[in-house]
């Protein structure tokens, strides 16, 4: 089922009488293709959870429309939309067993949709098998680990075979190791069921790793939509570039003069087709190459060994970010002086942004 959002806007009235209303989501237009896994990504307060609530019907939009396939569901109550929602805290009913929790949505069906007990139990078993909790069916939620509770919540959301599955911060309550495992699990379940799935997260790594498409939001406005690698490689503005990637992108203030990019007084890169102006220069940590005669000279602070690679921390007077972090593969020989280090830059890992609008400026090498 494809999900179409048209000019979706949600404004909340201000708490005080004088204050302005808060725009949680502003003019969100996007068509989510059928059967894809979409990550809504942004810092907290960016309107991603509100978007999720609008799609599932817990909130009504101020303006705009939502379509599931060809159905306009904008005015439909949540129960008639055919959505499954996994809550951030799972919201498993503590007094019911796992089986009863999964059965709960089925038992709500009325009239012609009503199922026999046998069919309901079979469906619950099927959902449980899908998330691999069939051995835990008679336990209470309090007797489960966080990851198991998460699976039960997903099973409960899936048991009615919703048209759209929504996950609100699905991994935020899990520890780091379980998070890795569970995100693969979500990916697998989504692939197996083929249900269009939208999940909300503030963790860019999580979103990048499993999404077909990611939507980067900030303050209610959608900044960029695209495949994770595309958004990472071609961020549309400085915010998106800064938000994606760990360690984060290194930002310098620089200037383009006569087709050459200058950081401070170092001419570091030829940039064709860019008129002379002040720019922000974003360099991904992996975009630095150690070279004895490299054009960019930085004051060395520390070298952190991380096993697979080394992280070279240095400073530069023109840097906006406090420290510059370069990731260098461990096997590379580095001739690092005691107090300074010189880098060359990989052009594909360098992004230019207009100093005033912070929009990305494309350039040719």
């Amino acid at each position, binding site marked *: 089922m494809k999900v179409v959002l048209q000019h979706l806007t949600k404004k909340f009235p201000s708490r005080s009488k004088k204050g302005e209303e808060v725009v949680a989501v502003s003019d969100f237009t996007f068509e989510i293709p059928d059967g894809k896994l979409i990550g809504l990504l942004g810092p907290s307060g960016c309107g991603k959870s509100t978007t999720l609530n609008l799609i599932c019907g817990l909130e009504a939009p101020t303006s705009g429309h939502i379509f599931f396939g060809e159905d306009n569901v904008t005015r439909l109550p949540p129960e*008639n939309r055919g959505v499954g929602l996994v*809550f951030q*805290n799972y*919201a498993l*009913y503590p007094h019911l067993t796992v089986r009863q929790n999964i059965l*709960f949505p089925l038992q*709500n*069906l009325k009239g012609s949709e009503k199922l026999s007990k046998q069919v309901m139990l079979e469906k619950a078993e099927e959902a449980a098998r899908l998330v691999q909790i069939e051995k835990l069916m008679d336990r209470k939620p*309090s007797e489960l680990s966080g990851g198991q509770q998460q699976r039960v919540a997903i099973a*409960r959301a899936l048991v009615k075979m919703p048209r759209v599955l929504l996950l609100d911060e699905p991994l935020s309550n899990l520890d780091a190791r379980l998070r890795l495992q569970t995100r693969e699990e979500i990916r697998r379940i989504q692939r197996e069921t083929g249900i269009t799935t939208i999940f909300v997260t503030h963790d860019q790594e999580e979103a990048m790793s499993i999404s077909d498409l990611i939507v980067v939001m900030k303050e209610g406005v959608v900044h960029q939509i695209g495949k994770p690698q595309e958004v990472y490689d071609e961020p549309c503005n400085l915010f998106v570039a800064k938000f994606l990637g760990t360690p984060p992108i290194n930002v310098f203030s620089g200037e383009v003069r006569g087709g050459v990019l200058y950081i401070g007084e170092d001419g570091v890169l030829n940039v064709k087709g860019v008129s002379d102006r002040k720019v922000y220069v974003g360099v991904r940590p992996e975009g630095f190459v150690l070279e004895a005669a490299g054009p960019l000279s930085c004051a060395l602070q520390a070298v952190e060994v991380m096993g697979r690679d080394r992280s070279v921390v240095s400073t530069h007077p023109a840097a906006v970010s406090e420290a510059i972090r370069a990731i260098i593969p461990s096997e590379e020989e580095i001739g690092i002086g005691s107090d300074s280090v010189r880098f060359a830059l990989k052009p594909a890992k360098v992004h230019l942004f207009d100093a005033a609008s912070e929009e990305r400026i494309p350039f040719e090498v």
Partner: protein
Amino acid sequence: MMKKNWKAWLYLLPAIAFLGVFMVYPLVDVFVYSFEEGYNSASQTFWGTGLYNYSYVLHDPYFLQAVKNTFILVIITVPVSTGLALLISVGLNSIKPLRELYQTVFFLPYVTNTLAVGLVFMILFKKTAYSDGMINLLINFFGGQSVDFIEGPYWAKMLVMCIYTVWVVMPFKILILTSALASVPQSYYNAAKIDGTSKWRTFTRITLPMISPMIFYLVITGFIGAFKAYSDEVAIFGTNLNAAGMNTIVGYVYDMLYGDSGGYPSYASAAALILFAIVLTITVINLMISRKNVQY
């Protein structure tokens, strides 16, 4: 570890001393009195020991009347007051405007003096030389016959007593239940909404189980409180409850000690221990039921 123990006991000493003198000793005393026949507190004498006191109390028509009254009160007022309180709390929880005002109004009986409330009930129910009372005026208005609620038939008196008790005990229950309802996380309701759960099913399958520990707490304390009813009866029917036929077990104990026919600490003790046995039994049953039903 052992060395430091004496310190702990030292800290506990004041509390233990007070409890011992004012709780444990009297309790033991009551137990002893109840088996001492013809105990006289002035001369500190008695003529024998045995179960005679219990036998006397259990054959005393006044006591049997008191037991009957108490049981009727308990059986009617505890479920009715808890049910009404639940209804009102759910109502309060689902309205937004004026919620605080209503909460205050419903809580007023809790802070009002028993005797003042008794006075209000007099105005509502008591026949005087000038009027038959508010309720009778209403009954007359709808073409009914006046009923003497205070000195009339037993059912009328019991009705007034039950209404009064329910009205007095409800505020506390409303207070507890509204806070219990407010503490049910919204996400459960959102989850239920998305699954298309009907309002009634949401209430019976989610709300009620979630607040059931509080409901059981209220039922258990409600039972205990209702079994100890006495002052409310005095507020409406005066101190001579036996004459009004509205005595309660605690009232009987009091009468046996200090009433006009009083001065029998042995009978009073026996009656008190019978009450204790009743309350203990009911509470144990309650707890067993709640253990079965509240488990998460």
